[in-house]
């Protein structure tokens, strides 16, 4: 892909995706959202304490990257995203202090799902960095629902 074509593709992606992603971000109260379209990655980060820009008017931070032309080097492009899923049907609550950017090791408590008064612990499966908080604290979740994504620390 030439630089011109890349720029054009990125412009298109931004026009097509950013409004929809921004809307979804605020609707679900997400911290950030990322989609891939071919070689392109579009990442939208909400303003607020958990990350993102402090730009006025609650604007969002948008990062668009391609795999062949690294406009903005996104951290951990070589790392594996490790999904943390709900072990039970109930209400999910995050562990205190959990947020994007936090380093965790295998076994670190992510939170718990309360099912009929019984807490089912949710723990990180591997060492890494918390990337996305997908679920909301207090949210009803189903079995297997994606709660958190962790960037697994590459071995060595």
């Amino acid at each position, binding site marked *: 892909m030439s630089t011109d074509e890349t720029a054009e593709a990125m412009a298109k992606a931004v026009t097509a995706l950013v409004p929809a992603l921004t809307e979804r971000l605020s609707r679900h109260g997400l911290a950030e959202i990322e989609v891939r379209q071919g070689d392109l990655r579009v990442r939208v980060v909400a303003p607020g304490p958990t990350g993102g820009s402090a730009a006025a008017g609650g604007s969002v931070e948008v990062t668009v990257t391609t795999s062949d032309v690294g406009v903005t080097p996104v951290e951990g492009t070589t790392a594996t995203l490790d999904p943390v899923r709900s072990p039970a*049907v109930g209400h999910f609550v995050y562990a205190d202090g959990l947020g994007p950017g936090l380093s965790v090791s295998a076994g670190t408590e992510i939170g718990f799902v309360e099912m009929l008064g019984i807490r089912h612990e949710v723990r990180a499966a591997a060492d890494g960095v918390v990337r996305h908080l997908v679920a909301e604290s207090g949210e009803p979740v189903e*079995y297997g629902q994606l709660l958190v994504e962790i960037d697994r620390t590459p071995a060595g």
Partner: protein
Amino acid sequence: MFAKILIANRGEIAVRILRTCQELGIPAVVAFSEPDRDSLAVRLSDEAICIGPAEARRSYLNQPALISAALITGCDAVHPGYGFLSEDASFAEACAVHDLVFIGPRAQVIERFASKYAVRRMLAATGLPTVPGSTGIVADLADALAQAEAAGYPVLLKPSAGGGGRGMRLVRSPREMETQLPLARSEARAAFGDDSLYFERWIEDNRHVEVQVLVDSYGNGIHLGERDCSVQRRHQKIVEEAPSPAMDEPARERLRDLAIRSVVAAGYENAGTLEFLLDREGNFYFIEINCRIQVEHPITEALTGIDLVAEQLRIASGERLTLTQEQVQLRGHAFEFRITAEDAHDNFSPQTGVVSELSWPEGPGIRVDTHLFAGYEIPPYYDSLLAKLIVWGEDRGEALARARAALADCRIEGVKTNLPFHRAIVDNAAFVDAEVSTNLLDRVGPAAFVGEPA
């Protein structure tokens, strides 16, 4: 009526229950296990929730997960379907504790009707004939001989601590009783640590006939006629029909009337089915009651025009029966063919696969209850039922003719099924003449019906 119902089941029955909920305008949530995420019930539902992994113990049998799923989705009732937790008194009780209505009999009613032996005694006391046998445990050989003489040979000796057919012995004469009783005793002692035995008369060439009842929580009950489920393989029903072709109308009336009276007298509630053995002489004997909706309920719906799931919902929500016995009209004749993922040409071995092509028969009197769609992958974890073809006609002959044509029009590609068996049995002389007894298939083998694969 309910605000929202959790459907705690899968397959065709989940789709069936969902259909009634949608007709009645009651929102429903389909509870599903991970491999059922793309199932038809989930696709047709407005709301669905994953309750666990494939293993039934952790999903469809997982009581806390189901109750939690009902609560977080705002349901006030749970329909258990058939199988899984449908007759589990502890689940009905757990629902009640969380202010959820279990759509079926209340826990204390299920509990009272749970023990086969106790129920036989209870319903015998309210007027139902039961299989003649020993009065309780046999004391010794002299007692066994005297009691067997009264009940009539052959008899089936059963360990009182046993179950599932283990340690049972067929005794055809007093001579055999003398040799078999000590053997059965030592067998029972070895297997169950308890050598007490009882016996029942063995009814060799029996038919299986069952009566559908509806009883509200105020002691009003009606029957919806009987079904004949004599085409079985290893105690699994394959074809059912209604009314029973083995009984004449006065006999059927007597059976239905006795069944509804005794079950109301015993305090049953909601939909239920009383199962009977019918012998060659036309005597019927009560064997057990099923406290749930049954797989074969559509043939009763075909004859009566009554939606049995809707009636279950109404009764569970505390409504009174609005139908009287006189309003129940049994019209025509109906068959149900259970189409399963079992290879009819390979001793009914279970099959999996992806349904690559699918088409169903259509026309007057035809109904198909199924969860299949083209592209559906049949998971290996659950039972093999794929679809139920229900065919209705004005009389048995018309229903049978329609069934032949309908079975010829069923097309399921990508997975082997028992359709060849169904296509063969509708032309089988014993079936056409209504001469099939429950042990026929196991005696002659299904191969006698389907022959060799082409």
